């Protein structure tokens, strides 16, 4: 049932994006030919990309190709869409996962500290910080970080994924992962130095959400009898929070993190643009500007697959972790 609705959602996305982008004004074929090309040239190339057929017919041809793993050919790059998109995917995945980890660490620390010092000034300060972090979206945090840690106090890189002059021994596009595996710490430092600001920009709002929710459920758990009991046994407050309260308080936060992770991935589009980071989102914006219809379709579908995939995974994990939802 869950798989069926996922399939319907993906099909819906495909239909909408396909028809929307075909209404885009501007002829991509005319844009790729040099000035002085004849009408016949334009017609020939239009036919080559199948753009002379009716829109429903184009959709069926495209859908048939997709089911065989063929997403068409990019008009600007003149390469298969699938290869282009998969080439950029690792950059976006590494950025998203790094941002997610940062959000969990920052949010978790805020929640634990707030619980440990509850009722005091520290907790009030954490609440105000959380409120601000939550109110302002990743795009603005990115700009603030560029100004603060890129320009006024330049400690990190503010554009690109890696310093272009470096010699890269990589065979995959998972730069961060591969530099770790190959123990090339010189490259690792450079890559992290490029990634840290965009990842932090993406992480700040999510960290605030995690911090708020986890603190809330920790507080509720701290009032339960078994926690009071372990306190009377003489365990330290830190031990009580980490060992007794946390395991029971973490489930609602975990579910929320899953859903919010898709929002974070959606945020990479503009954050990659802001930091000139060569990922999927940056490629998507270029594709829209260049009217590269097959490439736009491919990227949007891939994003939709990632979103629905993450949601499916969250549901399954939740069912596995929550005994009340386990079937028979």
């Amino acid at each position: 049932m869950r798989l069926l609705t996922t399939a319907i959602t993906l099909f819906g996305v495909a239909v909408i994006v396909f028809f929307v982008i075909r209404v885009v004004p501007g002829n991509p074929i005319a844009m790729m030919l040099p000035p002085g090309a004849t009408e016949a040239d334009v017609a020939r190339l239009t036919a080559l990309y199948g753009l002379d057929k009716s829109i429903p017919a184009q959709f069926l041809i495209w859908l048939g190709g997709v089911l065989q793993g063929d997403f068409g050919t990019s008009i600007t790059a003149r390469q298969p869409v699938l290869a282009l998109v998969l080439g950029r995917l690792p950059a976006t995945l590494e950025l998203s996962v790094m941002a997610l980890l940062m959000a969990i660490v920052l949010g978790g620390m805020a929640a634990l500290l707030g619980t440990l010092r509850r009722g005091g000034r520290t907790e009030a300060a954490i609440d105000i910080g959380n409120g601000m972090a939550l109110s302002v979206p990743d795009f603005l945090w990115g700009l603030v970080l560029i100004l603060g840690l890129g320009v006024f106090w330049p400690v990190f890189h503010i554009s690109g994924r890696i310093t272009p002059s470096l010699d890269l021994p990589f065979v995959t596009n998972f730069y961060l992962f591969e530099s770790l595996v190959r123990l090339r710490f010189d490259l690792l430092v450079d890559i992290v130095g490029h990634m840290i600001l965009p990842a932090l920009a993406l992480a700040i709002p999510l960290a605030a959400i995690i911090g708020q929710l986890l603190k809330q459920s920790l507080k509720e758990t701290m009032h339960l009898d078994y926690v009071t009991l372990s306190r009377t046994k003489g365990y330290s407050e830190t031990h009580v929070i980490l060992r007794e309260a946390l395991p029971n308080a973490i489930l609602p936060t975990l579910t929320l993190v899953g859903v919010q992770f898709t929002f974070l991935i959606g945020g990479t589009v503009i954050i990659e643009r802001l930091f000139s980071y060569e990922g999927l989102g940056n490629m998507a914006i270029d594709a829209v500007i260049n009217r590269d219809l097959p490439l736009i379709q491919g990227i949007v579908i891939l994003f939709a697959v990632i979103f629905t995939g993450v949601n499916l995974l969250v549901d399954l994990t939740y069912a596995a972790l929550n005994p009340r939802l386990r079937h028979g």
Partner: protein
Amino acid sequence: MADVMDGRGAVRRKGGLRLWLSACWLAVVVVVALLAPWVAPHDPLAQDLFLGRMPPVWMQGAEPGYYLGTDSLGRDVLSRMIHGARIALAVALFAGVITALLGASLGLLAGFMRGWVDLVISRLIDIWMAFPPVLFSILLIAVLGPGLSSIIIAIVVIDWTRFARVVRAEAMAQGAMDYVQSARVAGRGRLGIMLVEVLPNVLPTVIVLLTLEMGIAVIVEAILSFVNLSISTDDPTWGGMISEGRASIHQAWWVLVFPLATLFLTVLAFSQLGEGLKDRFDPVLR
């Protein structure tokens, strides 16, 4: 227990302050936007290539009369920010209200009518949630062409789900309550119950969401200006100024800092206003 009660009291007191501060800042922005032609010291479009990238007035080498400096084309940063407030607020108001109307209506229909109406609207929401919103908005602007109305349409088309999701859940909860059942027993029509009984009860939620949506609309306008798809590169928008400031960040930081700070405070104010209102409306906290 005492701990929890104290926490709530603190939230309420803080809520009052932040509500007040946010409302004040937004009032300033509204007044400045309305009076823009009279309060702006210069024409926001006037270029003067001899005055390019002048620093703010308190720094060395500043040009008197250009309080926050000039951009690379010699246009006054302060005047452009003041005129930019008009565009930002217009987008916030129109996009916010239309999105709220559309999203809340669909959510109300789905949550109260249930059945196939709910099925169709819920499936649409699912599909919408699978789109990366920024990419979706850029795509829509490419279709609609740049311009103020295109931005508003794009925001409405993308963000209606924010209202529809929440209002649907709320309407479902209200529909199961006793007062709706008794209205039904009293022989009132479904449409009448929905509009007279359920709608007033979901209205506070809609108002809170609307306040948040206005902040989001300002950001979306800025993002679209940033990728050069908003209005036109000449028109003074906060996003367009930020985009220019990002490009010349190492030569003229003031072109980025002032519009960014204004945008930051405005978005923060809308959001805090929404959160403050939420606390006010929440019967548990009252």
